[in-house]
């Protein structure tokens, strides 16, 4: 499948903590920016996809129909909204499948959000009189509906099994925060973090501190996935060499054999089975860092280092821009703000085009983009 779909354009909207703009406004800004970046016109778009969206899922995001109307997209051959999956990369996987199968040629993928409207993730947002159904019935009454308490349980077991320490978590946060200082769009730009400050940050749910969690933000990112024949006419397309997308090791957030594992393992196996490239070929790795603990597991499951060794890898400085294999080069979820991986995809395209300015990884030719945690993950391999 390698080379059948390319990323033809990327676009960002403004990003901040309280911009006073609608999700739709931010999304349209990012979409038009991506179309312009590709050197295309709106009329070239024949596919539209997102994850999630306000109508199809309990999460946030402008509905497909809003974006279609706002952009004046007359005729679409692929039109899909994903309610679940490894974050917005689920939507990009859909776009790649549509393009690779010939269903559509130029698919616009978007992720837009406002922090105030993310009820799952903001503490105290749920009311006592609300009902909890299905899986939530077994979790919400105990104060663990989603977010930090659930991922803290995972982190606790992961650290128990691998020997990872809070110092290893700190290394992820410090690396991301340092990279954010070279990214004016990042929410933590202008706010460096020291190791002492990390350990003074209060716990949200042990072992996760406030700084171990990504910050909800207003923002939007859009990418355009195009077929090879259409991509050649765009400005600087980047090749999708391979995609790994899988569930595992067991279904559900907390049941099954080993809570210290997650589907990053299966997704990485799928990825490396679909390319002759190897982890040693990577020039940068946008490991998923919605919580710092997840980034450690991604580094190991991607094959960059052995299990339990991610902390040492980061402590050596290898993960910093200028080091052997930089991670989260834009600052990651932890440095930029919560975009569930869509920003990572755009950043990797920018890096491989050699347009990352102060953040540029030298001779960047191969990049991995990871999204997801727990039972469903995806990883993309992009090449220049």
């Amino acid at each position, binding site marked *: 499948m390698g080379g059948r779909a390319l990323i033809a354009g990327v676009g960002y909207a403004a990003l901040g903590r309280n911009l006073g703009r609608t999700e739709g406004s931010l999304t349209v800004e990012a979409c038009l920016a991506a179309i312009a970046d590709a050197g295309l016109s709106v009329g070239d778009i024949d596919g539209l996809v997102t994850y999630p969206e306000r109508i199809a899922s309990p999460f946030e995001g402008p509905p497909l129909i809003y974006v279609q109307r706002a952009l004046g997209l007359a005729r679409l051959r692929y039109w899909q909204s994903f309610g679940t999956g490894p974050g917005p990369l689920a939507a990009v996987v859909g776009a790649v499948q549509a393009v690779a199968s010939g269903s559509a040629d130029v698919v616009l993928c978007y992720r837009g959000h406002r922090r105030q409207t993310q009820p799952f993730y903001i503490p105290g947002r749920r009311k006592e009189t609300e009902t909890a159904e299905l899986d939530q019935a*077994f979790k919400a009454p*105990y104060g663990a509906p989603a977010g930090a308490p659930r991922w803290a349980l995972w982190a606790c077991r992961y650290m128990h099994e691998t020997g990872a320490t809070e110092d290893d978590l700190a290394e992820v946060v410090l690396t991301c925060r340092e990279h954010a200082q070279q990214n004016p769009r990042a929410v933590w730009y202008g706010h460096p973090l020291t190791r002492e400050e990390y350990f003074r940050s209060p716990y949200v*749910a042990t072992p996760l501190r406030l700084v171990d969690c990504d910050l909800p933000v207003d923002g939007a990112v859009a990418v355009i996935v195009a077929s090879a024949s259409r991509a050649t006419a765009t400005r600087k397309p980047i090749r999708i060499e391979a995609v790994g997308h899988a569930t595992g090791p067991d279904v559900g957030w907390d049941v099954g054999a080993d809570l210290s594992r997650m589907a990053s393992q299966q997704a990485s196996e799928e990825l490396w089975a679909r390319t002759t490239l190897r982890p040693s070929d990577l020039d940068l790795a946008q490991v998923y860092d919605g919580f710092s603990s997840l980034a450690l597991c991604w580094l190991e499951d991607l094959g960059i280092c052995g299990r339990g060794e991610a902390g040492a890898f980061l402590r050596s400085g290898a993960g910093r821009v200028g080091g052997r294999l930089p991670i989260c080069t834009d600052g990651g979820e932890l440095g930029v703000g919560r975009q569930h991986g869509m920003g990572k995809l755009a950043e990797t395209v920018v890096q491989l085009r050699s347009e990352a300015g102060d953040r540029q990884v030298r001779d960047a030719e191969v990049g991995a983009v990871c999204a997801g945690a727990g039972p469903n993950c995806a990883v993309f391999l992009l090449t220049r």
Partner: protein
Amino acid sequence: MPVADEETRPFWSGLRLHALVIARCRSCLLWMHPPTASCPRCHSPDIGADPVSGRGRVYSYTTVHREFIAGVPPPYVVVLVELDEQAGLRVLANLIETDRIAPRIDLPVEARFEDVNGELTLLRFAPV
């Protein structure tokens, strides 16, 4: 307020009677939680529910310092308990009596039942 359906009612009814009732395949005897309409192992649709001993060990835990659900004020401890009946059979609840014994992995615990109101009983675990 948790909402029960036909599959989960034995669990919630069990809690009202101060019992931990877990779904079990009547064909291959696999325990499963939360309940599902077919057995994940042998695919039989013949699913029942039986009381378990209530004993297990802490598989993972976290102390939560922020309010995530109104009515569950911090700090509180969430535990994932692996029940003695089957490897991998896990139930999530709050750990109580943490001033007596601090949470740790493999801590032996037993189920307790807290009547919140006339309609709702919640599961707790306490160190044995």
